[in-house]
């Protein structure tokens, strides 16, 4: 774990849980999906991230200060979520610290929720979900659940760090990516990614409320979306549109 990043535990952390990441990225899919999970499953804050690398920022909820990056959970699930766009230059130490912390807590799998942008998103009739995994065995699980695999391409952002870190140690991890708007908060895509998460983890929540509150979420999430756009530009997110040269 990076010395500059500390994870402060507030409650006893369960072993063998599934750890899910919902960090700001295209369409804010992961942030919207994990926020919905927290509210539907009534999850409590179990830990938070403290780091001098982050801007001098706190989030106030009901008059009390909170870290913008927190971990919520119960006995089976740990959700790492961020309420702020993570600066591109510190995303490595932040992600690696959270991943190392999860491994120390013997989580059984890590899953990152995010999106894959499509053109003419507003005209899309249905949104597909794609997956990529850290190990062939995890990829097989995805296949068995009927989720399409993202076969070739580049991946940029928190999910790229997670897959790379976990692949190094053969740790099971996967990222679920729903087709989405690139620059607009996308609650419909978040609902789709939650349906795929349910098929993999059996974490089931009703997504109808998420869809009902879609307009409110889109209005409320404009500011974090705007800041996320700036960080995505810095980390060269557009490289995800490139076609890789295959080197076997």
């Amino acid at each position, binding site marked *: 774990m990076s010395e500059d990043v500390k994870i402060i535990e507030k409650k006893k952390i369960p072993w063998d849980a599934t750890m899910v990441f919902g960090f700001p990225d295209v369409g804010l899919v992961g942030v919207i999906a994990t926020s919905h999970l927290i509210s539907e499953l009534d999850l409590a804050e179990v830990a938070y991230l403290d780091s001098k690398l982050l801007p001098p920022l706190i989030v106030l909820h009901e008059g009390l200060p909170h870290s913008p990056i927190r971990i919520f959970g119960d006995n089976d699930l740990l959700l790492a979520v961020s309420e702020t766009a993570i600066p591109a230059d510190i995303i490595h130490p932040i992600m690696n610290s959270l991943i190392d912390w999860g491994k120390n807590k013997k989580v059984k799998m890590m899953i990152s929720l995010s999106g894959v942008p499509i053109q003419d998103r507003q005209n899309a009739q249905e949104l597909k979900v794609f997956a990529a995994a850290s190990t062939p065995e995890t990829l097989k699980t995805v296949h068995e659940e009927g989720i399409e695999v993202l076969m070739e391409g580049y991946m940029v952002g928190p999910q790229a760090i997670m897959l790379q870190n976990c692949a190094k140690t053969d740790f099971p991890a996967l990222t679920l990516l729903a087709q989405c708007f690139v*620059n607009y908060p996308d609650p419909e895509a978040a609902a789709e990614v939650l349906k795929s998460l349910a098929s993999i983890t059996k974490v089931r929540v009703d997504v109808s409320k998420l869809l009902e509150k*879609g307009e409110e979420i889109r209005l409320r999430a404009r500011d974090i979306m705007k800041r996320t756009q700036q960080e995505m530009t810095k980390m060269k997110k557009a490289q995800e549109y490139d076609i890789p040269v295959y080197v076997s």
Partner: protein
Amino acid sequence: MSTRKKRSIFDIMDEYFEDLEEWTEELEERFGEKPSWNPKNCTIEPLRDITVTPTEVIVTVDLPYAQEKTVKVTPLDKNTIEVSAKMKKKMKYGDFGITHYKGEFHTLQCRARVPVPVHIQKMKTSFRKGVLEIRLPRKDEHEIPVE
């Protein structure tokens, strides 16, 4: 011999300040450091996106809570458009749990500067799933002949 209109120092200064204003607006837009809520005008600035293709410029604007019939696109000059829409319901800071600011918002409003010359009067618009799409055909002003 070409005749060149002589410009006064005031013209040059006016131009300089216009450029400076434009640059400041661009910086504000790029870095997003101005609030997206304007309590004075009761407006909320929606998110927008601009894509330039070889034949057209596509501007999209995310308009949550917009009443479709009130969506308006107004050309302000040859390369700037303004989008506005009345909201289905008035929103207050309090609706988002904010207690230290006061204000009520009933309109979504933003401006978009198009980065290349376009036929602004030939724009076509559509509105689907709360997203407004404006297609502006590009002007062929800089064609280079291939010899």
